[in-house]
Protein backbone atom coordinates (compact mmCIF):
# COMPACT_ATOMS: atom_id res chain seq x y z
CA UNK A 1 0.00 0.00 0.00
CA UNK A 2 1.17 3.51 -0.64
CA UNK A 3 1.86 6.12 2.02
CA UNK A 4 -1.31 8.02 1.22
CA UNK A 5 -3.47 5.02 2.04
CA UNK A 6 -2.39 5.24 5.67
CA UNK A 7 -5.33 5.91 7.95
CA UNK A 8 -5.14 8.56 10.62
CA UNK A 9 -4.94 5.83 13.24
CA UNK A 10 -2.01 4.15 11.57
CA UNK A 11 -0.31 7.50 11.20
CA UNK A 12 -0.62 8.06 14.94
CA UNK A 13 0.46 4.58 15.96
CA UNK A 14 3.36 4.15 13.55
CA UNK A 15 6.63 3.10 15.13
CA UNK A 16 8.53 5.28 12.66
CA UNK A 17 7.25 8.81 13.17
CA UNK A 18 8.53 11.31 10.63
CA UNK A 19 8.50 14.41 12.80
CA UNK A 20 8.60 15.63 16.37
CA UNK A 21 4.92 16.51 16.16
CA UNK A 22 3.92 13.06 14.96
CA UNK A 23 5.90 11.36 17.72
CA UNK A 24 4.27 13.55 20.33
CA UNK A 25 0.76 13.12 18.95
CA UNK A 26 1.27 9.37 18.74
CA UNK A 27 2.25 9.25 22.36
CA UNK A 28 -0.73 11.39 23.36
CA UNK A 29 -3.03 9.15 21.35
CA UNK A 30 -1.79 6.03 23.13
CA UNK A 31 -2.39 7.70 26.49
CA UNK A 32 -5.85 8.82 25.34
CA UNK A 33 -6.75 5.27 24.30
CA UNK A 34 -5.64 3.94 27.66
CA UNK A 35 -7.67 6.67 29.35
CA UNK A 36 -10.86 6.04 27.39
CA UNK A 37 -10.62 2.31 28.04
CA UNK A 38 -11.63 3.20 31.59
CA UNK A 39 -15.39 3.97 31.52
CA UNK A 40 -15.50 5.59 34.95
CA UNK A 41 -12.66 7.91 34.05
CA UNK A 42 -14.58 9.07 30.99
CA UNK A 43 -17.58 9.76 33.22
CA UNK A 44 -15.30 11.79 35.51
CA UNK A 45 -13.99 13.73 32.53
CA UNK A 46 -17.56 14.35 31.35
CA UNK A 47 -18.51 15.73 34.78
CA UNK A 48 -15.53 18.09 34.80
CA UNK A 49 -16.20 19.21 31.21
CA UNK A 50 -19.83 19.75 32.21
CA UNK A 51 -18.68 21.91 35.11
CA UNK A 52 -16.52 23.96 32.76
CA UNK A 53 -19.41 24.43 30.32
CA UNK A 54 -21.68 25.51 33.20
CA UNK A 55 -19.12 28.00 34.42
CA UNK A 56 -18.45 29.48 30.98
CA UNK A 57 -22.11 29.76 29.93
CA UNK A 58 -23.55 30.56 33.37
CA UNK A 59 -25.38 33.75 32.24
CA UNK A 60 -27.06 31.82 29.40
CA UNK A 61 -27.89 28.68 31.37
CA UNK A 62 -29.09 30.16 34.65
CA UNK A 63 -32.89 30.71 34.58
CA UNK A 64 -32.85 33.43 37.27
CA UNK A 65 -30.49 35.94 38.81
CA UNK A 66 -28.18 34.38 41.42
CA UNK A 67 -28.20 37.53 43.55
CA UNK A 68 -31.71 38.96 43.44
CA UNK A 69 -34.62 36.95 44.77
CA UNK A 70 -38.31 37.54 45.19
CA UNK A 71 -38.45 38.03 48.96
CA UNK A 72 -42.20 38.58 48.99
CA UNK A 73 -43.41 35.54 47.03
CA UNK A 74 -40.63 33.03 46.56
CA UNK A 75 -38.98 32.37 49.92
CA UNK A 76 -37.96 28.76 50.62
CA UNK A 77 -40.05 27.27 47.82
CA UNK A 78 -39.94 23.52 47.31
CA UNK A 79 -38.24 22.20 44.17
CA UNK A 80 -40.68 22.23 41.28
CA UNK A 81 -41.51 23.92 37.98
CA UNK A 82 -40.18 27.46 37.91
CA UNK A 83 -37.51 26.74 40.47
CA UNK A 84 -36.19 23.24 39.73
CA UNK A 85 -34.09 23.07 42.86
CA UNK A 86 -36.23 25.33 45.00
CA UNK A 87 -35.35 28.72 46.45
CA UNK A 88 -33.45 29.84 49.53
CA UNK A 89 -34.43 32.09 52.44
CA UNK A 90 -34.02 35.21 50.32
CA UNK A 91 -36.14 33.86 47.50
CA UNK A 92 -33.18 33.25 45.20
CA UNK A 93 -33.26 30.37 42.72
CA UNK A 94 -30.88 27.67 44.02
CA UNK A 95 -30.23 26.22 40.55
CA UNK A 96 -29.07 29.61 39.28
CA UNK A 97 -26.88 30.09 42.33
CA UNK A 98 -25.33 26.64 41.83
CA UNK A 99 -24.63 27.41 38.17
CA UNK A 100 -22.93 30.69 39.03
CA UNK A 101 -21.22 29.01 41.98
CA UNK A 102 -19.49 26.62 39.57
CA UNK A 103 -17.40 29.59 38.46
CA UNK A 104 -16.11 30.09 42.00
CA UNK A 105 -15.46 26.38 42.45
CA UNK A 106 -13.54 26.20 39.20
CA UNK A 107 -11.63 29.36 40.04
CA UNK A 108 -10.55 27.94 43.40
CA UNK A 109 -9.52 24.59 41.95
CA UNK A 110 -7.59 26.00 39.01
CA UNK A 111 -5.81 28.73 40.95
CA UNK A 112 -4.84 26.41 43.78
CA UNK A 113 -3.49 23.87 41.30
CA UNK A 114 -1.63 26.54 39.35
CA UNK A 115 -0.04 27.97 42.50
CA UNK A 116 0.57 24.88 44.61
CA UNK A 117 1.68 22.28 42.05
CA UNK A 118 4.61 24.25 40.59
CA UNK A 119 5.82 25.25 44.06
CA UNK A 120 5.71 21.66 45.24
CA UNK A 121 7.33 20.40 42.03
CA UNK A 122 10.17 22.90 42.21
CA UNK A 123 10.86 22.44 45.93
CA UNK A 124 10.72 18.64 45.65
CA UNK A 125 12.89 18.22 42.55
CA UNK A 126 15.50 20.74 43.71
CA UNK A 127 15.66 19.15 47.16
CA UNK A 128 15.88 15.66 45.70
CA UNK A 129 18.48 16.47 43.10
CA UNK A 130 20.68 18.80 45.16
CA UNK A 131 20.70 16.64 48.28
CA UNK A 132 22.82 17.66 51.28
CA UNK A 133 21.90 20.79 53.19
CA UNK A 134 19.64 22.16 50.44
CA UNK A 135 17.56 19.00 50.74
CA UNK A 136 17.57 19.21 54.55
CA UNK A 137 16.46 22.85 54.65
CA UNK A 138 13.75 22.51 52.00
CA UNK A 139 12.31 19.30 53.41
CA UNK A 140 12.27 20.55 57.01
CA UNK A 141 10.27 23.56 55.81
CA UNK A 142 7.96 21.12 54.05
CA UNK A 143 7.71 19.05 57.24
CA UNK A 144 6.72 22.12 59.24
CA UNK A 145 3.88 22.86 56.80
CA UNK A 146 2.84 19.20 56.83
CA UNK A 147 2.73 19.13 60.62
CA UNK A 148 -0.18 21.58 60.71
CA UNK A 149 -3.67 20.28 60.05
CA UNK A 150 -4.52 21.67 56.63
CA UNK A 151 -7.82 23.34 57.49
CA UNK A 152 -6.47 24.85 60.71
CA UNK A 153 -3.50 26.37 58.90
CA UNK A 154 -5.80 27.68 56.17
CA UNK A 155 -8.03 29.15 58.88
CA UNK A 156 -5.04 30.87 60.45
CA UNK A 157 -4.00 32.35 57.10
CA UNK A 158 -7.49 33.56 56.30
CA UNK A 159 -7.79 35.01 59.80
CA UNK A 160 -4.53 36.88 59.23
CA UNK A 161 -5.27 37.96 55.65
CA UNK A 162 -8.95 38.64 56.10
CA UNK A 163 -11.91 36.65 54.77
CA UNK A 164 -12.62 36.49 51.04
CA UNK A 165 -12.35 34.07 48.14
CA UNK A 166 -8.95 35.37 47.02
CA UNK A 167 -7.40 34.91 50.43
CA UNK A 168 -9.03 31.50 50.77
CA UNK A 169 -7.32 30.45 47.52
CA UNK A 170 -3.95 31.68 48.76
CA UNK A 171 -4.45 29.94 52.11
CA UNK A 172 -5.40 26.62 50.47
CA UNK A 173 -2.47 26.87 48.03
CA UNK A 174 -0.02 27.53 50.84
CA UNK A 175 -1.25 24.51 52.74
CA UNK A 176 -1.48 22.07 49.84
CA UNK A 177 1.98 22.20 48.23
CA UNK A 178 3.93 20.10 50.78
CA UNK A 179 2.57 16.70 49.65
CA UNK A 180 3.53 17.59 46.05
CA UNK A 181 7.04 18.44 47.19
CA UNK A 182 7.28 15.06 48.90
CA UNK A 183 6.09 13.18 45.82
CA UNK A 184 8.40 15.12 43.51
CA UNK A 185 11.34 14.53 45.82
CA UNK A 186 10.65 10.80 46.03
CA UNK A 187 10.42 10.56 42.22
CA UNK A 188 13.59 12.60 41.86
CA UNK A 189 15.51 10.35 44.25
CA UNK A 190 14.62 7.30 42.17
CA UNK A 191 15.94 8.82 38.94
CA UNK A 192 18.75 11.15 40.03
CA UNK A 193 21.43 8.46 39.88
CA UNK A 194 20.08 6.65 36.87
CA UNK A 195 22.38 6.34 33.88
CA UNK A 196 20.27 8.60 31.70
CA UNK A 197 20.59 11.49 34.14
CA UNK A 198 24.33 10.80 34.56
CA UNK A 199 24.59 10.79 30.77
CA UNK A 200 23.07 14.26 30.61
CA UNK A 201 25.49 15.39 33.32
CA UNK A 202 28.28 14.06 31.15
CA UNK A 203 27.00 16.24 28.33
CA UNK A 204 27.94 19.16 30.55
CA UNK A 205 24.38 20.16 31.45
CA UNK A 206 23.97 22.48 34.43
CA UNK A 207 22.06 21.22 37.48
CA UNK A 208 19.19 23.60 36.69
CA UNK A 209 18.94 22.28 33.17
CA UNK A 210 18.90 18.71 34.44
CA UNK A 211 16.20 19.46 37.00
CA UNK A 212 13.98 21.53 34.69
CA UNK A 213 14.31 19.59 31.45
CA UNK A 214 15.08 16.03 32.46
CA UNK A 215 13.78 15.37 35.96
CA UNK A 216 10.63 17.49 36.08
CA UNK A 217 9.01 15.84 33.03
CA UNK A 218 9.35 12.52 34.82
CA UNK A 219 7.66 13.82 37.96
CA UNK A 220 4.86 15.65 36.21
CA UNK A 221 2.59 12.72 35.44
CA UNK A 222 2.44 11.43 39.01
CA UNK A 223 1.96 15.01 40.14
CA UNK A 224 -0.96 15.59 37.74
CA UNK A 225 -2.61 12.46 39.10
CA UNK A 226 -2.10 13.55 42.67
CA UNK A 227 -3.33 17.10 42.03
CA UNK A 228 -6.45 15.80 40.30
CA UNK A 229 -7.18 13.48 43.22
CA UNK A 230 -6.58 16.36 45.63
CA UNK A 231 -9.00 18.63 43.81
CA UNK A 232 -11.92 17.05 45.61
CA UNK A 233 -10.18 17.90 48.88
CA UNK A 234 -9.49 21.43 47.68
CA UNK A 235 -13.17 21.94 46.82
CA UNK A 236 -14.13 20.61 50.24
CA UNK A 237 -11.63 22.87 52.00
CA UNK A 238 -12.88 25.87 50.05
CA UNK A 239 -16.43 24.88 50.89
CA UNK A 240 -15.40 24.40 54.51
CA UNK A 241 -13.90 27.87 54.64
CA UNK A 242 -17.04 29.19 52.97
CA UNK A 243 -19.18 27.33 55.49
CA UNK A 244 -17.25 28.95 58.35
CA UNK A 245 -17.76 32.34 56.77
CA UNK A 246 -14.06 32.78 55.98
CA UNK A 247 -14.15 32.05 52.26
CA UNK A 248 -16.46 33.68 49.76
CA UNK A 249 -18.56 36.41 51.33
CA UNK A 250 -22.30 36.94 50.80
CA UNK A 251 -23.91 37.32 48.38
CA UNK A 252 -21.42 35.28 46.34
CA UNK A 253 -23.04 31.93 45.48
CA UNK A 254 -20.18 29.81 46.80
CA UNK A 255 -21.36 26.26 47.46
CA UNK A 256 -19.94 25.94 50.99
CA UNK A 257 -21.39 29.28 52.00
CA UNK A 258 -24.75 28.19 50.54
CA UNK A 259 -24.73 25.10 52.75
CA UNK A 260 -23.91 27.28 55.75
CA UNK A 261 -26.83 29.59 55.09
CA UNK A 262 -29.16 26.62 54.54
CA UNK A 263 -28.17 25.06 57.85
CA UNK A 264 -30.85 26.97 59.73
CA UNK A 265 -33.64 25.35 57.71
CA UNK A 266 -32.09 21.92 57.34
CA UNK A 267 -34.98 20.05 58.99
CA UNK A 268 -37.90 21.79 57.30
CA UNK A 269 -36.37 23.00 54.02
CA UNK A 270 -33.70 20.38 53.42
CA UNK A 271 -33.07 21.31 49.76
CA UNK A 272 -31.50 24.64 50.65
CA UNK A 273 -28.46 22.89 52.14
CA UNK A 274 -28.72 19.58 50.27
CA UNK A 275 -28.56 20.92 46.70
CA UNK A 276 -25.14 22.61 47.04
CA UNK A 277 -24.07 19.53 48.99
CA UNK A 278 -24.98 17.35 46.01
CA UNK A 279 -23.13 19.69 43.69
CA UNK A 280 -19.96 19.40 45.79
CA UNK A 281 -20.39 15.62 45.93
CA UNK A 282 -20.77 15.25 42.16
CA UNK A 283 -17.87 17.51 41.27
CA UNK A 284 -15.58 15.90 43.87
CA UNK A 285 -16.53 12.49 42.54
CA UNK A 286 -15.82 13.68 39.01
CA UNK A 287 -12.31 14.83 39.93
CA UNK A 288 -11.61 11.57 41.76
CA UNK A 289 -12.73 9.43 38.81
CA UNK A 290 -10.68 11.60 36.45
CA UNK A 291 -7.64 11.29 38.72
CA UNK A 292 -7.92 7.51 38.80
CA UNK A 293 -8.19 7.37 35.02
CA UNK A 294 -5.20 9.68 34.60
CA UNK A 295 -3.17 7.48 36.90
CA UNK A 296 -3.79 4.51 34.64
CA UNK A 297 -3.13 6.52 31.51
CA UNK A 298 -0.04 8.43 32.60
CA UNK A 299 1.73 6.07 34.96
CA UNK A 300 5.23 5.77 33.47
CA UNK A 301 5.64 2.28 34.89
CA UNK A 302 2.54 1.09 33.07
CA UNK A 303 3.59 2.64 29.76
CA UNK A 304 6.94 0.91 29.50
CA UNK A 305 6.43 -1.07 26.36
Amino acid at each position, binding site marked *: MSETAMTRREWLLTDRPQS*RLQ*ARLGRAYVAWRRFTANRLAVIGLAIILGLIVLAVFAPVLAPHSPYVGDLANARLMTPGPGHWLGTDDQGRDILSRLIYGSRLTLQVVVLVAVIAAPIGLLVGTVAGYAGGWVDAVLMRITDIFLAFPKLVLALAFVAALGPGIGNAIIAIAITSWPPYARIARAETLTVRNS*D*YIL*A*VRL*MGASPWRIVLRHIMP*LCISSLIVRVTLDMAGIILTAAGLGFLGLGAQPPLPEWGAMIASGRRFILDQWWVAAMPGFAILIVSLGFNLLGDGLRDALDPRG*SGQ
Partner: protein
Amino acid sequence: MTPALAIDGLRVAFDDFVAVEDVSLSVAPGESFGLVGESGSGKSTLLRAVAGLAPVTGGTIAIGGKVLGDRRDKAFYRTVQMVFQDPYGSLHPRQTVDRLLLEPLAIHGFDDTESRIVRALDEVGLGAGFRFRYSHQLSGGQRQRVAIARALILEPSILLLDEPTSALDASVQAEVLNLLEQLRAARGLTFVMVSHDLAVVTHMCDRLMVMQNGRAVEQLTAADLAARRVTQDYTRGLLAASEGFRRTA
Protein backbone atom coordinates in the same frame (compact mmCIF):
# COMPACT_ATOMS: atom_id res chain seq x y z
CA MET B 1 54.06 12.52 23.02
CA THR B 2 51.65 13.58 25.78
CA PRO B 3 49.32 10.76 26.70
CA ALA B 4 45.63 11.28 25.96
CA LEU B 5 44.80 10.12 29.46
CA ALA B 6 47.23 9.81 32.36
CA ILE B 7 46.18 8.62 35.79
CA ASP B 8 48.63 8.79 38.63
CA GLY B 9 48.12 7.24 42.07
CA LEU B 10 44.34 7.49 41.82
CA ARG B 11 42.31 6.76 44.94
CA VAL B 12 38.51 6.73 45.02
CA ALA B 13 36.71 6.32 48.32
CA PHE B 14 33.00 6.35 49.19
CA ASP B 15 32.96 7.33 52.86
CA ASP B 16 34.95 4.48 54.46
CA PHE B 17 34.92 2.16 51.48
CA VAL B 18 37.94 2.44 49.25
CA ALA B 19 36.92 1.40 45.72
CA VAL B 20 40.14 2.25 43.89
CA GLU B 21 43.56 2.49 45.55
CA ASP B 22 46.78 3.78 44.05
CA VAL B 23 46.12 3.03 40.39
CA SER B 24 48.31 4.58 37.71
CA LEU B 25 48.02 4.20 33.97
CA SER B 26 48.69 6.06 30.79
CA VAL B 27 46.86 5.81 27.47
CA ALA B 28 48.37 7.16 24.27
CA PRO B 29 46.23 9.07 21.74
CA GLY B 30 44.48 6.69 19.38
CA GLU B 31 45.17 3.74 21.61
CA SER B 32 42.55 1.33 22.88
CA PHE B 33 43.05 0.43 26.51
CA GLY B 34 41.19 -2.29 28.39
CA LEU B 35 40.36 -2.61 32.08
CA VAL B 36 39.68 -6.15 33.18
CA GLY B 37 38.66 -7.66 36.47
CA GLU B 38 35.89 -9.40 38.31
CA SER B 39 32.80 -7.63 39.64
CA GLY B 40 33.70 -5.16 42.35
CA SER B 41 37.31 -4.85 41.30
CA GLY B 42 36.93 -1.09 40.84
CA LYS B 43 37.27 -1.00 37.06
CA SER B 44 33.94 0.77 36.46
CA THR B 45 34.60 3.13 39.36
CA LEU B 46 37.92 4.06 37.80
CA LEU B 47 36.12 4.97 34.59
CA ARG B 48 33.49 6.97 36.46
CA ALA B 49 36.20 8.82 38.37
CA VAL B 50 37.69 9.92 35.06
CA ALA B 51 34.23 11.09 33.93
CA GLY B 52 33.74 13.00 37.18
CA LEU B 53 30.96 10.74 38.47
CA ALA B 54 32.91 9.23 41.39
CA PRO B 55 34.66 11.09 44.21
CA VAL B 56 38.42 11.31 43.68
CA THR B 57 40.15 11.36 47.07
CA GLY B 58 43.75 11.16 45.96
CA GLY B 59 46.03 11.17 42.95
CA THR B 60 45.60 13.00 39.66
CA ILE B 61 43.86 12.51 36.34
CA ALA B 62 45.25 14.35 33.33
CA ILE B 63 43.62 14.67 29.93
CA GLY B 64 46.03 15.62 27.15
CA GLY B 65 48.58 16.69 29.75
CA LYS B 66 46.14 18.93 31.62
CA VAL B 67 45.40 17.87 35.19
CA LEU B 68 41.67 17.86 35.99
CA GLY B 69 40.28 19.65 39.01
CA ASP B 70 37.22 18.67 41.02
CA ARG B 71 34.88 20.45 38.64
CA ARG B 72 34.80 19.48 35.01
CA ASP B 73 34.33 22.27 32.49
CA LYS B 74 32.49 22.16 29.20
CA ALA B 75 35.73 21.67 27.27
CA PHE B 76 36.25 18.45 29.21
CA TYR B 77 32.89 17.08 28.15
CA ARG B 78 33.73 17.84 24.54
CA THR B 79 36.91 15.82 24.87
CA VAL B 80 35.72 12.89 26.97
CA GLN B 81 32.42 11.06 26.59
CA MET B 82 31.11 7.82 28.01
CA VAL B 83 28.91 4.94 26.91
CA PHE B 84 27.15 3.18 29.74
CA GLN B 85 26.72 -0.50 30.36
CA ASP B 86 22.97 -0.82 30.35
CA PRO B 87 21.32 0.54 27.20
CA TYR B 88 17.93 0.10 28.86
CA GLY B 89 18.88 2.53 31.62
CA SER B 90 20.97 5.08 29.78
CA LEU B 91 18.30 6.60 27.53
CA HIS B 92 15.72 8.97 29.00
CA PRO B 93 12.35 7.14 28.94
CA ARG B 94 10.34 10.24 27.93
CA GLN B 95 12.52 11.55 25.15
CA THR B 96 12.74 10.72 21.48
CA VAL B 97 16.05 9.83 19.91
CA ASP B 98 15.93 13.25 18.28
CA ARG B 99 15.64 15.00 21.62
CA LEU B 100 18.38 12.85 23.16
CA LEU B 101 20.79 13.83 20.41
CA LEU B 102 19.70 17.46 20.40
CA GLU B 103 20.45 17.94 24.09
CA PRO B 104 24.28 17.84 23.93
CA LEU B 105 24.21 20.09 20.86
CA ALA B 106 21.95 22.57 22.65
CA ILE B 107 24.13 22.57 25.77
CA HIS B 108 27.26 23.29 23.77
CA GLY B 109 25.57 25.80 21.51
CA PHE B 110 25.94 24.12 18.14
CA ASP B 111 24.07 25.69 15.24
CA ASP B 112 23.82 23.02 12.58
CA THR B 113 21.86 20.65 14.82
CA GLU B 114 19.70 19.23 12.03
CA SER B 115 22.57 17.98 9.89
CA ARG B 116 24.57 16.79 12.89
CA ILE B 117 21.73 14.65 14.21
CA VAL B 118 21.15 13.08 10.81
CA ARG B 119 24.86 12.43 10.40
CA ALA B 120 25.23 10.98 13.91
CA LEU B 121 22.38 8.54 13.31
CA ASP B 122 23.85 7.62 9.96
CA GLU B 123 27.25 6.90 11.43
CA VAL B 124 25.93 4.37 13.92
CA GLY B 125 23.93 2.60 11.25
CA LEU B 126 20.48 3.88 12.25
CA GLY B 127 18.54 5.55 9.47
CA ALA B 128 16.39 8.64 9.76
CA GLY B 129 13.45 6.31 10.46
CA PHE B 130 14.67 5.96 14.03
CA ARG B 131 14.98 9.65 14.66
CA PHE B 132 11.61 10.30 16.26
CA ARG B 133 11.21 7.05 18.13
CA TYR B 134 11.05 6.81 21.88
CA SER B 135 13.57 4.58 23.57
CA HIS B 136 10.94 1.95 24.38
CA GLN B 137 10.41 1.50 20.64
CA LEU B 138 14.03 0.39 20.19
CA SER B 139 15.80 -2.92 20.76
CA GLY B 140 18.80 -3.25 23.06
CA GLY B 141 21.31 -3.05 20.23
CA GLN B 142 19.56 -0.06 18.68
CA ARG B 143 19.54 1.68 22.05
CA GLN B 144 23.25 1.14 22.47
CA ARG B 145 23.80 2.57 19.00
CA VAL B 146 21.83 5.65 20.01
CA ALA B 147 23.94 5.91 23.17
CA ILE B 148 27.09 5.72 21.05
CA ALA B 149 25.70 8.34 18.66
CA ARG B 150 24.96 10.59 21.62
CA ALA B 151 28.47 10.17 23.02
CA LEU B 152 30.07 10.89 19.65
CA ILE B 153 27.90 13.81 18.58
CA LEU B 154 30.13 16.24 20.50
CA GLU B 155 33.11 14.80 18.61
CA PRO B 156 35.15 13.80 21.64
CA SER B 157 38.66 12.38 21.26
CA ILE B 158 38.39 9.99 24.20
CA LEU B 159 35.54 7.54 24.64
CA LEU B 160 35.02 5.74 27.94
CA LEU B 161 33.19 2.45 27.45
CA ASP B 162 31.71 0.80 30.52
CA GLU B 163 31.01 -2.77 29.41
CA PRO B 164 29.19 -1.47 26.34
CA THR B 165 28.08 -4.89 25.16
CA SER B 166 27.58 -6.98 28.29
CA ALA B 167 23.82 -6.36 28.33
CA LEU B 168 23.42 -7.45 24.71
CA ASP B 169 23.13 -10.90 23.24
CA ALA B 170 26.05 -12.43 21.37
CA SER B 171 25.22 -11.51 17.76
CA VAL B 172 24.29 -7.93 18.64
CA GLN B 173 27.42 -7.74 20.77
CA ALA B 174 29.58 -8.42 17.73
CA GLU B 175 27.72 -5.80 15.69
CA VAL B 176 28.20 -3.12 18.31
CA LEU B 177 31.88 -4.01 18.81
CA ASN B 178 32.49 -3.84 15.09
CA LEU B 179 30.73 -0.49 14.96
CA LEU B 180 32.94 0.84 17.76
CA GLU B 181 36.07 -0.48 16.08
CA GLN B 182 35.06 1.10 12.80
CA LEU B 183 34.32 4.47 14.44
CA ARG B 184 37.64 4.40 16.25
CA ALA B 185 39.50 3.80 13.02
CA ALA B 186 37.55 6.51 11.20
CA ARG B 187 37.94 9.19 13.85
CA GLY B 188 41.20 8.23 15.53
CA LEU B 189 39.45 7.91 18.89
CA THR B 190 41.09 6.86 22.11
CA PHE B 191 39.17 4.10 23.89
CA VAL B 192 39.22 3.14 27.52
CA MET B 193 37.09 0.06 27.78
CA VAL B 194 35.94 -1.81 30.85
CA SER B 195 35.00 -5.43 30.46
CA HIS B 196 34.94 -8.67 32.32
CA ASP B 197 35.03 -10.51 29.02
CA LEU B 198 38.64 -11.24 28.13
CA ALA B 199 37.73 -12.26 24.59
CA VAL B 200 36.16 -8.83 23.96
CA VAL B 201 39.18 -7.05 25.43
CA THR B 202 41.73 -9.03 23.44
CA HIS B 203 39.70 -8.34 20.31
CA MET B 204 39.28 -4.62 20.92
CA CYS B 205 42.28 -3.42 22.90
CA ASP B 206 45.98 -2.88 22.30
CA ARG B 207 46.87 -2.93 25.98
CA LEU B 208 45.03 -3.78 29.13
CA MET B 209 45.24 -3.61 32.88
CA VAL B 210 44.02 -6.31 35.23
CA MET B 211 42.44 -5.08 38.45
CA GLN B 212 41.50 -6.80 41.68
CA ASN B 213 40.03 -5.32 44.86
CA GLY B 214 40.57 -1.77 43.67
CA ARG B 215 44.25 -2.27 42.87
CA ALA B 216 46.13 -2.82 39.64
CA VAL B 217 47.40 -6.38 39.33
CA GLU B 218 49.38 -6.02 36.12
CA GLN B 219 49.45 -4.35 32.72
CA LEU B 220 49.80 -6.40 29.56
CA THR B 221 49.56 -6.04 25.83
CA ALA B 222 46.85 -7.92 23.99
CA ALA B 223 49.57 -10.02 22.37
CA ASP B 224 50.88 -11.00 25.82
CA LEU B 225 47.45 -12.08 26.84
CA ALA B 226 46.84 -14.07 23.69
CA ALA B 227 50.20 -15.84 24.14
CA ARG B 228 49.54 -16.43 27.85
CA ARG B 229 52.60 -14.37 28.82
CA VAL B 230 51.26 -13.35 32.21
CA THR B 231 53.17 -12.93 35.43
CA GLN B 232 50.49 -12.88 38.10
CA ASP B 233 48.54 -15.83 39.44
CA TYR B 234 45.36 -13.80 39.52
CA THR B 235 45.55 -13.10 35.80
CA ARG B 236 46.18 -16.79 35.15
CA GLY B 237 43.07 -17.56 37.19
CA LEU B 238 41.05 -15.10 35.12
CA LEU B 239 42.32 -16.64 31.91
CA ALA B 240 41.39 -20.12 33.08
CA ALA B 241 37.96 -18.90 34.12
CA SER B 242 37.40 -17.23 30.75
CA GLU B 243 38.03 -20.46 28.91
CA GLY B 244 35.04 -21.78 30.76
CA PHE B 245 34.01 -25.24 31.59
CA ARG B 246 36.04 -27.81 29.73
CA ARG B 247 34.97 -31.40 29.51
CA THR B 248 37.80 -33.71 30.47
CA ALA B 249 37.39 -36.48 28.01
